[in-house]
Structures are given as structure tokens and as C-alpha cells.
């Protein structure tokens, strides 16, 4: 039976990876991802996890080793943050093109410079277009549950794409929270052994990663995008199966007290919990506000987002990264695209907050709602507004 454990979120993720019985882990240490891979290497050393732990000399090699292990048919996991993700960048593009279902945790952290070990979303946003499925979690339980579900999504033969599970570095990765752990037999029922669709095997040789001549390159990219977009169906199926088996429900777009709301805050990641407090406070004051959270960042759940826009007049999108020189935060840009040309689409305000470990307080959220509603009233043309910055 499931048991309740108070444990650091990083360690809960490692336990989920252990329960998934991964065959190979390749990782290079970077703050704040370290506790995850330290614990995994410990589990391997103690004989609790029968896997190859490959302590590589860089993140570039971490992802390259993952390409090798996954292509050889091993269930493969890695974790990184910030500069590490940036160093992997080149290989991130190739993993989905080769259709390798690698699962990676990203303990989200700001990118240099100046160097910052603290949390924001600039790392994941900078690899938006690499072709990975990207999921955001808000608390330890979600991190545990969605790590397990990620293997099932990635390895589904209709998908065979890599997934990143994003959690806020330090503010989530390093906190101790209660988790409902699952037993091994429960996990085994949910997540059967990985059956590769193709693997490097001398008895059935294939060549992977051949030269993409102009006659096929466009088809290769179209195929990748269609499969990535189609994966949302599998994501939803897996969420449903998990809910059915273990009672915890996940949606690609989550809402909080959003019914009848005229203004919605939109968040991703662990700030959502503070945002909920702000919503409670504003609702107590009689305001028609609610919260919408993107769980799935890629593929972008445009249809599910549109379905939640019923009575909404103003949408305040909070980005935790800057798209330098761009027309708004990266998430706001996506949302604007998804809702443009939609009848009665809401006014979309783009806010950037919480960069490099800067707190976003309840009052900040309230201020964003205030500003968004005022801007909506006059249909203010803007790119983005930065909250909590000294001007």
C-alpha cells in the first residue's frame, strides 16, 4: 500500500526514478540538481537500483551518453539545470529526432550572466524549440507522480519522444514535503518494462542519424512536430490511467477557482501555490478572479487553453524569463498566438516576475491583477511589464 513519507523533493524524484527501474542514468552535477543524482548514485551503490550510473565529464556528454543508452534500448534518465541544460542544447535537438524516450528532470534555474544559482524559467524557455515534451510540476507529490508518468508517456510507441519534468530549483527541489509514495508492485502495474521499438543490435542492424538530404529534411521535421503534437492524447490517457489507479488527477491545463472568473492569472511551476493564496484573498474581497496553470508547456495545449476562456475578459500571464528584444514573455507570446483570432478572446497582459530567485509575493499577484484589469479597460498596447524591479 502507498505510504506517506516526509522527504526532500529531490530525493522523492530519485525514488520515483528507482521505482521506474531505469537501466541507465548519466549525469553531471550542477546546482540545484545535485541532490537528485547524488541520491540515485547512492541507490545504485547500495544495490537498491540495478542501473548503470555514468558520471560524465559534462552535460554535453550526459545527454550524449543518454543518446547511446537509449538507442541501445535502456530506460534512460538524467537531470540538470541552467548552464547544464544550455550546454546540452545541441544534443537536445537530436534526441527527439532520433525518437529516443529519455526522461530528464530540470531543476529550473536562471541562466548566466551574471551567474545565478537561483530559480526562474530562463533555462527551459531557452530550449523551447528542441522538440521535447515539457511538463511543469508545482509540488513534491506532483514531481514524484509526473516523473513516473513521464516514462510511460515517453516510451509509448505512438510517442517515443523525450520529456523534461520541470520543477523550480531550490524553492521546490530543496524543500521537505510529505509525499504519498507508491509501492513497487503498484508502479510495476502502471509502468511495465520498456520495450524499445528499435535498438542497436548486431542481429538486426540499423543506421540511426543518417544525413538528412533536402529531399527528406522537411518531412523529418514535419513528422517530429506531428508526433509531438499528437503526444497530448497519450499524455491525457496516461494522466487518466494514473488517476484511475492511484486517485490523483492531473490535467494539461489546471485551474483554481476559475469558474465565473473575469480575470485569470496564468502561472507555471511552484509560484502557483502563492498565486492561489492571492486568488483566495481577492475572492474574499469579492473580485471575480481565478487561476490557470499550464502543466504541459510542450506540446502547447492550445485547445485546452481556449476551452477555459469562457467568461474571461482579462488574462494576466506571468513569465519567469525574458525573451530579449521580443514582444513579451515567452509564455505570453504563446498564449497570445493561441488566442488570437478567437472570438471574444480576452485581453492578454504580459508580466515578467520572479527572475533569478526574486520572490513573487501575494501582493505582487494582486498588483498584477490590478494592473491587468486597468490595462484591459483601455486596451493598452504593451509588450510586457516587469514586476518587482527597481526603476
Amino acid at each position, binding site marked *: 500500500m502507498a505510504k506517506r513519507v516526509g522527504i526532500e523533493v529531490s530525493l522523492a524524484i530519485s525514488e520515483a526514478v528507482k521505482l521506474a527501474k531505469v537501466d541507465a542514468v548519466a549525469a553531471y552535477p550542477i546546482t540545484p540538481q545535485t541532490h537528485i543524482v547524488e541520491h540515485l548514485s547512492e541507490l545504485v551503490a547500495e544495490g537498491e537500483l540495478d542501473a548503470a550510473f555514468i558520471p560524465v565529464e559534462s552535460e554535453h556528454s550526459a545527454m550524449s551518453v543518454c543518446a547511446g543508452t537509449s538507442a541501445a534500448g535502456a530506460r534512460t534518465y538524467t537531470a540538470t539545470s541552467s548552464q547544464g541544460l544550455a550546454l546540452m542544447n545541441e544534443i537536445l535537438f537530436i534526441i527527439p529526432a*532520433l525518437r529516443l524516450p529519455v526522461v530528464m528532470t530540470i531543476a529550473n534555474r536562471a541562466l548566466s550572466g551574471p551567474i545565478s544559482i537561483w530559480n526562474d524559467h530562463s533555462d527551459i524557455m531557452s530550449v523551447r524549440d528542441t522538440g521535447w515534451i515539457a511538463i511543469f510540476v508545482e509540488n513534491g507529490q506532483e514531481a514524484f507522480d509526473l516523473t513516473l508518468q513521464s516514462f510511460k508517456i515517453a516510451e509509448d510507441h505512438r510517442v517515443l519522444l523525450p520529456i523534461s519534468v520541470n520543477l523550480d530549483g531550490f524553492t521546490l527541489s530543496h524543500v521537505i514535503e510529505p509525499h504519498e509514495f507508491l509501492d513497487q508492485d503498484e508502479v510495476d502495474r502502471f509502468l511495465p518494462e520498456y520495450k524499445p521499438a528499435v535498438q542497436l543490435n548486431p542481429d538486426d542492424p540499423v543506421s540511426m542519424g543518417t544525413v538528412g538530404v533536402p529531399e527528406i529534411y522537411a*518531412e*523529418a521535421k514535419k513528422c517530429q512536430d506531428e508526433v509531438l503534437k499528437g503526444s497530448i492524447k497519450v499524455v491525457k490517457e496516461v494522466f487518466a490511467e494514473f488517476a484511475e489507479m492511484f486517485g490523483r488527477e492531473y490535467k494539461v491545463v489546471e485551474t483554481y477557482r476559475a469558474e465565473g472568473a473575469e480575470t485569470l492569472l496564468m502561472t507555471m511551476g511552484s509560484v502557483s501555490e502563492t498565486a492561489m493564496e492571492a486568488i483566495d484573498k481577492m475572492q474574499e474581497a469579492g473580485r471575480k478572479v481565478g487561476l490557470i496553470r499550464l502543466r504541459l508547456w510542450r506540446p502547447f495545449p492550445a485547445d485546452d487553453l481556449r476551452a477555459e476562456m469562457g467568461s474571461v475578459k482579462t488574462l494576466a500571464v506571468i513569465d519567469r524569463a525574458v525573451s530579449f528584444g521580443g514582444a513579451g514573455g515567452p509564455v505570453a507570446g504563446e498564449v497570445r498566438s493561441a488566442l488570437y483570432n478567437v472570438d471574444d478572446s480576452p485581453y492578454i497582459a504580459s508580466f515578467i516576475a520572479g527572475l533569478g530567485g526574486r520572490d513573487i509575493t501575494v501582493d505582487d499577484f494582486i498588483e498584477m491583477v490590478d494592473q491587468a484589469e486597468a490595462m484591459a479597460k483601455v486596451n493598452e498596447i504593451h509588450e510586457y511589464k516587469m514586476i518587482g524591479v527597481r526603476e
Partner: protein
Amino acid sequence: MTKKYNEKAWHEYELGFMVSRPGCSAEYRTGDWRSQQPQTNKEKCIKCGVCYLVCPEGAIVLAADGTYDFDLEHCKGCGICATECWTGCISMVEEGE
């Protein structure tokens, strides 16, 4: 009729655009690149096999009599075989002569 690789729709390719027919490059005729081709004076050939060993194309094949023939569909005419031949029994002659 099966579609050629440059006629298929995006969903008709193999997973990850891999190639699952081992060694299928042999379908490609590099023999067209040649301006000179090797010819053997089989009377002088001592059947040593050096030409076979040093061919970058693997385009020199053992004949029934122990001498070697050229796979002219793939031979690019580099002339290494003629240069390396111990007895000088291979010569490079202009194509079409």
C-alpha cells in the same frame, strides 16, 4: 509500386528516419565517377590479393580462378590497386578505350 524515398509523405518513413537495410549504399553506382578503369593482365597476376585488400571501395572481388575482378559499378578509378600491385599486372586505362 513502392514510393521512392523522395516521394513519400512524412508519415511513411521509418522511425527517426533511420535506415534499416544494412549496406544498401551498394545500390548507388559510384562507377560513374571514373575517368580511368583498371585492367588486369591475368597472365602476370600471381593471385596475391593485395589489390583486393587495399581497395577503399571493396570493389575488387575474388574470381573463380583465384585472380581478381573489378566491380565496375563501384570502382571509382582511384588507381591504388594499380600502384600497389606487386607484379604491375594492373594498369589504368582511359574510360571507353
